[in-house]
């Protein structure tokens, strides 16, 4: 046994030790047979000049991501596999009728030739529809050489509706609005809606739908239709593994080595290669694609140019390297193994410090597309009192926390639309509590509560120098004479989000000082979601939202129709005046009118305070600037939020 065991161990050791030696020369041969043109890269010694690697020679854009894909099927990605990581890799390969412009988020045509016709009411076979027509560009190609046509759009939208696709599909092809799409020739599309769709359902919903190649997917859909009920049909559709699926983006999906990397190769037939895009200070937008389209909107191009760039792709290939953690990806970025890393939260403070001062790297900071807020349960007193909520908002010194305690890692905000979303952000909302001293805050809060009928056994009193509470408030009673009950604010623990937990602790302190009996309950994210959304059993909570550019979420979060269990208005905010504004926003079809509506809603919310909006954190990203270059780096949500950014990346 002794000898056997020893030899077994020796065997294993031997295999491992001899493999590298034995296949040392065979490495190139081995790879050359399986991957033509590929050679193994060795890590250069620290002080030796590095030989140009394959990535450098071939202009391979290398991106680090922190989780694996779960599918390469775009139907499934927009269905049950809707992870952000799938989105990073699969995004940009499907055309859409319309898209957002860079930086300004203007609504501009993509494969559409121009803006759609206005919505019109039409009766067809005794049924009333709202219809619109769209002309598609002629000459936009799939990578298999066929044209992107109206048939492709109609096939995609009709399939999603017919199969009742789940996941994110209903937010794109909303079954309550979309009826069907028809074609009138290969490049003319007519869309039928069951009811009049507002901007959220049509221009910022269906019009952004990724279009699938009908010729590739029709046989798969036909097979799925044979599968039985819609659940089985969806399963067949979602489980299809695409091979050779044509792309109309700058890159074509090529390879996925599970858990390791995914690669997309340059699309040599990309129709928008060389498109010259310009944004002007006047608000005008122009996109000129030689031989395809010359489009301008929002004014006459001319005057000062705020952004100008040319579409690529300039990279021969994009590789998405999968790392087990953000720390590992950061080390790879430092070492030069990757050029950029994607993370929806950006770089944490610690990782920023690790990368600070590294040669060849550039760190950028952008406003993020999210907010963190304090929400109230309107079903319980005293949270249903506007004066109480305004007093709470007054007592929260966001600037102090952000500047002093959190050392500037966050940005205090006062409205639900972040400042970075320039087109929809209303800077002119009531800024409750902003700029007040501690004493002024306490005085104002006491004044608000007293005016609403709240009383104290012992009123709070601030010291003469205004720096501390000399006398803590006690025995606070509601206008009906009942004592204010002991309350809890649910917030994520420090392990999950130190910023929100810090806010919760300080809110507990400030409210307790004036006699509001509040305790911060720092707990798991899932616990908060269950208590708030599934059970609605809470007093206050602190969470955050990631937000889309079009602010229809104002309706989702605060309209009374969403206050049922698992609705997005778990606090039960119910204000008929706001509901009217929210309904108006959803029904609005004119962009400028919708903007005014959104501004009004923001002002309304900043005063009525169903949420006390707390703060936002900038998205910090680092890229290898000695090797790659982006046409612009100032963009809401950071570079990672720009769909199709790999198409714009150039090499130094």
């Amino acid at each position: 046994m002794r000898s056997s065991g020893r030899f077994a161990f020796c065997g294993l050791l031997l295999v491992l030790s001899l493999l590298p030696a034995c296949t040392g020369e065979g490495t190139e041969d081995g790879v050359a047979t399986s991957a033509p043109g590929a050679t193994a890269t060795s890590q250069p010694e620290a002080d030796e000049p590095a030989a140009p690697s394959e990535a450098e020679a071939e202009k391979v854009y290398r991106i680090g991501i922190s989780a694996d894909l779960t599918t390469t099927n775009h139907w499934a990605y927009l269905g049950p596999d809707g992870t952000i990581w799938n989105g990073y890799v699969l995004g940009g390969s499907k055309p859409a009728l319309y898209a957002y412009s860079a930086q300004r988020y203007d609504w501009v045509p993509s494969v559409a030739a121009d803006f759609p016709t206005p919505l019109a009411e039409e009766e067809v076979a005794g049924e009333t529809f709202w219809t619109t027509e769209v002309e598609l560009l002629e000459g936009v190609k799939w990578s298999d050489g066929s044209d992107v046509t109206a048939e492709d759009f109609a096939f995609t939208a009709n399939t999603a509706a017919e199969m009742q696709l789940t996941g994110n599909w209903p937010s794109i092809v909303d079954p309550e609005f979309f009826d069907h799409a028809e074609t009138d020739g290969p490049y003319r599309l007519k869309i039928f809606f069951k009811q009049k769709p507002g901007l959220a359902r049509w221009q910022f919903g269906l019009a952004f739908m990724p279009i699938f190649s009908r010729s590739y997917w029709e046989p798969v859909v036909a097979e799925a239709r044979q599968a039985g009920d819609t659940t089985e049909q969806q399963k067949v559709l979602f489980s299809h593994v695409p091979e050779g699926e044509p792309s109309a983006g700058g890159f074509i999906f090529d390879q996925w080595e599970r858990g390791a990397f995914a690669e997309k190769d340059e699309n040599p037939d990309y129709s928008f290669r060389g498109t010259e895009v310009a944004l002007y200070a006047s608000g005008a937008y122009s996109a000129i694609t030689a031989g395809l389209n010359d489009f301008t909107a929002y004014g006459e191009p001319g005057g000062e140019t705020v952004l100008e760039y040319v579409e690529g792709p300039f990279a021969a290939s994009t590789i998405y390297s999968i790392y087990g953690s953000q720390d590992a990806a950061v080390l790879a970025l430092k070492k030069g193994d990757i050029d950029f890393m994607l993370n929806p939260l950006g770089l944490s403070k610690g990782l920023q410090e690790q990368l600070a001062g590294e040669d060849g790297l550039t760190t950028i900071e952008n406003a993020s597309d999210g907010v963190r807020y304090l929400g109230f349960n309107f079903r319980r007193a005293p949270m249903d009192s506007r004066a109480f909520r305004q007093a709470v908002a007054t007592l929260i010194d966001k600037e102090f926390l952000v500047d002093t305690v959190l050392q500037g890692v966050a940005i205090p905000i006062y409205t639900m639309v972040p400042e970075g979303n320039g087109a929809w952000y209303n800077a002119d909302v009531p800024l409750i509590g902003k700029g007040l001293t501690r004493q002024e805050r306490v005085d104002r809060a006491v004044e608000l509560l007293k005016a609403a009928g709240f009383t104290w056994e012992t009123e709070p009193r601030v010291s003469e120098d205004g720096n501390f509470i000399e006398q803590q408030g006690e025995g606070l009673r509601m206008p009906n004479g009942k004592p204010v009950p002991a309350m809890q604010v649910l917030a994520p623990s420090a392990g999950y989000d130190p910023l929100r937990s810090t806010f919760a602790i300080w809110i507990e302190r400030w409210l307790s000082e004036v006699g509001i009996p509040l305790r911060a309950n720092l707990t798991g994210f899932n616990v908060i979601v269950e208590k708030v959304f599934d059970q609605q059993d809470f007093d206050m909570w602190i969470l955050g939202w990631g937000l889309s550019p079009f602010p229809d979420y104002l309706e989702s979060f605060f309209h009374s129709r969403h206050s049922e269990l698992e609705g997005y208005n778990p606090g039960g905010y119910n204000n008929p005046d706001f509901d009217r504004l929210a309904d108006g926003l959803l029904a609005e079809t004119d962009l400028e009118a919708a903007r005014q509506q959104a501004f009004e809603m923001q002002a309304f919310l900043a005063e009525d305070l169903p949420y006390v909006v707390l703060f936002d954190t900038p998205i910090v990203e680092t890229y290898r600037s000695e090797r790659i270059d982006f046409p612009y780096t100032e963009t809401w949500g950071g570079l990672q939020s720009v769909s199709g950014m790999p198409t714009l990346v150039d090499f130094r």
Partner: protein
Amino acid sequence: MVLTLFLIITFTFFLVQAQPGDYASFYVLNPDLPPEVKDEIRAAFGLDKPAWQQYVIHLKNTFTGNLGVSFGNFPRPVLDVLAERVPRTLVLFLTATAVSFYIGFFLGKAIAWRRGGLFEYAATISGAMLFTAFTPAFALMMIWVFAFRLGWFPVGKFLDPLVWRGADVSANYVFGNMLLSAAAFITFALLVMLCLKRFGRRVPSVAAVPIVLGGALVIMAAWALSGIGGLALDIVKHMVLPVATLTLISFAGTMLLTRNSMLETIREDYVMAARAKGLPDKQVRDRHAARNAMLPIVTSLVYSLIFAIDGSVIIESVFSWPGTGLTLLQAVRSEDLPLVMGAMLFIGMLSLLAHVIVDVLYVYLDPRIRYQ
């Protein structure tokens, strides 16, 4: 065994169920989805039924060999996900376990035999320090020193995308072949040893070395000619740092176990008798003391080899090695119930198997043990 397995399944199922929320909570936070769509999603995953009903369905499916579909990899079967992750974990952790046990056993034997020397103190102190090191910090330090500063090894991952671009085989194909090669080589080495034992009096034991080496060379040649040797080499290159880290962290356990077991054994009369007979020190240590001290070590080795399939969440995360440990963690965090249950079932079955193997090995190793 069946009862134990049943208890494992039941306990795990309700433990995961006890977590707040479910997989569909992921969609609850999308404000664009109407409530009826969320209900449809729950129904599609079978999460609309009460927990006990889900449990009965799960139990029935499990005992008919259907582990279901992973929520997080929908609609991929759980078995498919596990089949992809297990070979990666096995290659890394079996290698690390074998290396650390070999080093630990060798050092333990040596320090027990030469008690009180500087070598014993140095090995014990350094081993204990490494054994108690905080694994994530130590692993990151290893990467920082050997991969980042010195540039000797890659910064994590199990392959280099630039080497694997356009490869017409998957990494799992290479991992599978590596495991097969190792199994073939071990079988060959064991057969050689059995033959030598049978004809031991006529063939000197040193004759085994060139035979075993020859076998290794045949395997090497096969790899070199296969066209995927370079890909295997790339994996081996990526294995070095995690294997070294795991070995440094864990060899001390075996070393101290061997040392203690040896210290008990060398006080036995038969060891004294062997010395009195004038046998060489090496022979007394290896054949009389070490062999009898092996019982707890073999037990520990078998459990370690079996539990190698479980991987290590920390090592797999830090070294970006997507094996079963990382998969299990992600499945638990996202409440991917079928995948958690599948992985736990697999691990439970293997741990039961480990107990059986250990019981059988005891009979072989200790002639005093006989099962009726």
